[in-house]
């Protein structure tokens, strides 16, 4: 219960100073505000289907802030917290979730992949990038994030296996949010934990509290550093909870109890961090208001940019299939132009 009151075990805590803790808090707050805004816009018909990260902010902020700019990151579809920290313009996130292809374009200075929609298939990509880094001798690390459902896929196992065999600089971060749509963790695997799967692939596996931003940050940072130094891969299972529906197209009350949700609401990572900050006298109401105001301003600015952007030229669909369009793409584009 001490944890729920924001009472950290100080013997385990490394000394995050006020500035760092505030950075965690402000990033988590921004992610949550963004999430709320996206849900509103979806309900108003101004955004398409959206996958909420509510409850998973500590993992995403803790891990996101552990990455260095030269590292690579391979996201799943429930990862806007890390996207924001990595510097993806917020308007791109709105583009993506409104079905606008511009949302998939990663800025040139950012080494991240766009979201993978097929569950788990991006795991081998991360392994391949890590392999590339090892072959080229670049001292970078790769982070790949995914859910508990993804651990049931072959891609996960083949990726873990390759990373283990070739000792690749990659960190596998599983956000075990207990549910894969309506299927509970207990239906994904009969193993007691997900972390123990690492043993079979010859790498370190750790299970951590995914609602503890300090723990997530420390663990991920250490794993990434180990990877950068040639120490090989790590698998991290961060235990958390998806507080919202699977997506805006889902109704989670069909398959899980409100008691369960209520229990986890008490462990809300933002609430916890706030309690901790209060105990340290680092939190005031006016600070919270100011943080919230800053988030709102950034988000509203992004909504404006997103909604006021001119539409994409649909002829573009022919332009990026190959570096040089093949003769039939040239022909099809001509016909398409005439029809329009």
């Amino acid at each position, binding site marked *: 219960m001490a944890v729920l009151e924001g009472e950290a075990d100080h013997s385990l805590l490394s000394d995050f100073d006020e500035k760092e803790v505030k950075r965690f808090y402000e990033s988590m707050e921004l992610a949550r505000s963004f999430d709320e805004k996206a849900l509103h816009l979806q309900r108003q018909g101004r955004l398409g289907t959206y996958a909420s990260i509510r409850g998973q902010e500590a993992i995403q902020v803790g891990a996101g802030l552990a990455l260095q700019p030269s590292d690579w990151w*391979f996201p799943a579809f429930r990862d806007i917290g890390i996207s924001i920290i990595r510097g993806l313009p917020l308007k791109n996130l709105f583009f993506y979730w409104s079905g606008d292809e511009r949302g998939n374009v990663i800025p040139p200075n950012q080494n991240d992949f766009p979201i993978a929609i097929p569950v788990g298939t991006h795991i081998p990509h991360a*392994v391949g990038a890590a392999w590339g880094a090892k*072959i080229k001798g670049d001292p970078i690390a790769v982070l790949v994030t995914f859910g508990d459902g993804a651990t049931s896929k072959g891609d996960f196992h083949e990726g873990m296996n390759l990373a283990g065999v070739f000792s690749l600089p990659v960190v596998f971060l599983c956000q075990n949010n207990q549910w894969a749509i309506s299927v509970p963790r207990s239906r994904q695997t009969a193993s007691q934990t997900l972390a123990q799967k690492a043993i079979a692939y010859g790498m370190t596996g750790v299970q951590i509290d995914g609602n503890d931003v300090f723990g997530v940050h420390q663990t991920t940072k250490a794993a990434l550093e180990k990877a950068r130094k040639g120490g090989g891969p790590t698998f991290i299972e961060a235990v958390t909870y998806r507080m919202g529906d699977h997506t805006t197209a889902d109704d989670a009350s069909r398959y899980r109890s409100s008691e369960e949700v209520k229990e986890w609401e008490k462990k809300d990572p933002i609430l916890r961090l706030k309690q901790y900050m209060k105990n340290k006298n680092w939190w005031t109401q006016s600070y919270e208001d100011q943080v919230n105001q800053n988030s709102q301003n950034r988000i509203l600015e992004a909504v404006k940019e997103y909604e006021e952007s001119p539409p994409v030229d649909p002829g573009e669909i022919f332009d990026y299939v190959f570096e040089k369009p093949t003769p039939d793409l040239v022909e099809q584009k001509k016909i398409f132009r005439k029809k329009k």
Partner: protein
Amino acid sequence: MEKLTLVQAINLALKEEMASNPNVVVMGEDVGKDGGVFRATVGLLEAFGEKRVIDTPLSETGIVGAAVGMAAYGLIPVVEIQFLGFIYPAMEQIISHAARLRTRTKSRYHCPMVIRAPYGGGIHAPEHHSESSEALFFHVPGIKVVVPSTPSDARALLKSAIRDPDPVLFLEPARIYRSIKEEIKGDGLVPLGEARTAKTGKDITLIAWGAMLQVALKAAEAVQKEGIEAEVIDLRTLYPMDTDKIIESIKKTGRGVIVHEAPLKGGLGGEIAAVIQEKALLYLEAPVSRVAGFNTAIPLPKMEQFYLPNPEGIVEAIHRTLCF
């Protein structure tokens, strides 16, 4: 230059491209110490070391998926899938990721990789070793499909495939890996997307690729004795397809027979026939014929001769088309 078989020509192309570009990496099952089950990668490990010639675990999805990440990171992975029949676990990685990476990121990332696989029947191999599923890949936007049918072309096309900035599926006709030897001329590259006239003629056009080219040439030789001059076109690249060359030949001959060892229905023969009727209908003297495999699984070795197109079947189709 000395005479080489098709598989030796592939080996040569790999050696040359690896020597000229340090980013080219060869990976797959048994490609290192063993030099590949068909010996296509023999000597590469010794020449380029373990970092660039990687014996992987048995893991088709993992290998192709990792190659996508490697390619995005700046390498050019040349992946060997031991037989085309074992590529299916990696289909998702090929279709959903390799072929789409450029499109979905508006060229922010792209996927310069080559997937090599021996394909086709006639080698008396066990089940799943004789697949000819090129049409599956032809249908996928974002991937090129290349099939050489001579040693010189194998070398030249593979070099072009490795230098291509987009993913290429390079299908190697296992049946003719060692059956033809040829002096490899020059160091010319054959551009992807350009077909070749293997034999000129004025009466009928035969269109083929891979191991079927030799079969089509035999049929052309057979009808020559009756005074029928068949033109034989080797497609070389299936996607993008050199339809200009096909149409040009059909306009000259007025008749066409397409030969492939893949199952008839939904095969590329249908696609080629459609292009011909769209672009050269008024030049046609007869319907275009197709000689192809059945829509059955490719039989085990004892029966595969009944499945695979042979010169007699092609000769029959030529007669049918000429007497229409």
